[in-house]
């Protein structure tokens, strides 16, 4: 069938079932926006992770009575360790200076601490930050070592927070996906019934299965495309107005970039189109006699 007559059939059907068409588009849009938001939250986790992996180190706090020899031996062992990329010694004075800088907005905290309260430390950059556990096991309890800290562990609550939002977005998207599937299924059933005379004629004059099904599948795909486009627009608007203009001023962490947004936009558009068309094809097998 030529594209012109095919689009005419599709256009007529979409107009005839306008209320159902709009319901499907709204559901698809909400579902895909939530799904896209879930993808962007995952991208945010990756962005924060990459940022922290570059900066957060494993810190070995030294005991106050650690000798220079113990410290040098420890540093030499660390430099020889293949898991360790670099080792920097930070004495009590430097530790106190950094503390004062980090908490400059909290003078009450700074006033209650002096240089002797903070330990000297060896700050490590690892070749693979995910192997911090091995370093902790290997160096905890060594002479002159008070404790070994993986700074990334401090950020576990942040990761839990982001993970919870990601899971929440995906769960809501799944619930909406169920609504979307049910709506498309119902729409095809109604549409196949409403167009039974048209399809009967198509069959009688020698229309192929593909020709008879094509308007239904295309109709559903168009709804998916429109829903996908609206969801993509919502993600872009969210990036511009929420992420770049609002969140960027409220956090010290880097936020996901446009590459993640474009990837999510393409994904929701493709999923919207193919899932809608696929669902229509499945429903037709049950509700359209060929």
């Amino acid at each position, binding site marked *: 069938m030529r594209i012109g007559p095919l689009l005419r059939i599709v256009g007529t059907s979409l107009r005839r079932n306008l209320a159902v068409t709009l319901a499907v588009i709204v559901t698809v849009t909400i579902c895909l926006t939530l799904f896209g938001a879930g993808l962007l939250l995952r991208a945010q986790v990756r962005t924060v992770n990459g940022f922290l992996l570059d900066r957060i180190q494993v810190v070995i706090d030294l005991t106050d009575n650690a000798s220079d020899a113990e410290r040098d031996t420890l540093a030499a062992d660390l430099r020889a360790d293949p898991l360790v990329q670099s080792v920097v010694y930070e004495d009590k004075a430097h530790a106190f200076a950094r503390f004062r800088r980090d908490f400059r907005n909290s003078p009450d905290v700074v006033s209650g601490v002096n240089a002797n309260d903070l330990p000297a430390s060896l700050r490590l950059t690892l070749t693979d930050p995910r192997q911090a556990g091995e370093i902790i096991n290997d160096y905890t309890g060594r002479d002159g070592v008070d404790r070994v800290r993986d700074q990334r562990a401090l950020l576990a609550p942040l990761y839990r927070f982001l993970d919870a939002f990601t899971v929440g977005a995906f769960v809501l998207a799944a619930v909406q996906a169920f609504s979307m599937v049910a709506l498309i299924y119902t729409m095809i059933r109604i549409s196949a019934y409403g167009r039974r005379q048209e399809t009967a004629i198509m069959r009688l*004059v020698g229309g192929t*299965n593909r*020709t008879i099904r094509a308007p239904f599948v295309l109709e559903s795909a168009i709804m998916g495309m429109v829903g996908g486009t609206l969801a993509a627009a919502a993600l872009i608007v969210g990036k511009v107005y929420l992420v770049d203009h609002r969140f960027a001023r409220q956090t010290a962490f880097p936020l996901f970039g446009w590459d993640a947004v474009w990837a999510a936009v393409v994904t929701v558009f493709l999923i919207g189109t193919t899932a809608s068309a696929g669902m229509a094809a499945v429903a037709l097998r049950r509700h359209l006699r060929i």
Partner: protein
Amino acid sequence: MIRMTSVTKRYPAAARPALDDVSVEIAAGEFTFLVGPSGSGKSTFLRLLLREERPTAGVVEVGGRDVTRIPNRRVALLRQQVGCVFQDYRLLPDRTVAGNVAFALEVTGRPRHVTRTVVPEVLDLVGLAGKADRYPDELSGGEQQRVVVARAFAGRPQVLLADEPTGNLDPATGLEIMRLLDTVNRTGTTVVMATHNASLVDAMRRRVIELRNGTVVRDQARGVYGLVF
């Protein structure tokens, strides 16, 4: 053009077969009436030719091909060669006369220039050239049936099947449709028409195949509706 060899068709819930060991041959270009009382098997006969049904036993050939063996995906091609006209007009109410005829060509993927040429030709053939832009509800029953004939003939099928095409029409209009089918037949198209209309059959004096209880009880060249001794 059409050959049925020892064809039997049983429906699951029926006590007796709809067709019982029927063997018939219809030559290309022939006009054949299929007569008999309701339930005699006329519609089943036509449905088998369209591959709407498969026979329980026997072979059904159209244009030299055994239609019972055609794979499902090729049935559409068979139906492009076998046009059909029914008692109920089955026109699309939201399309004009020309649109309804064009629909058959669009569905089978004919190019636009073919549609533009063929639609006026067939509307002229069926006498509706001046009503191409009318909608079905603006036409009389006879005119609607003419549109159906035009739609069935637009794809130039080798065979045209008509199942009670005059059943809803008054005698005069029925005769017009009959003449129209005769015109189609004169173009070389094989026509098989199931009917209860005795006067039309008697007036045409064409081949008559009479079915009763699923069997052929009469096959007569230049026959009439009721048996003449």
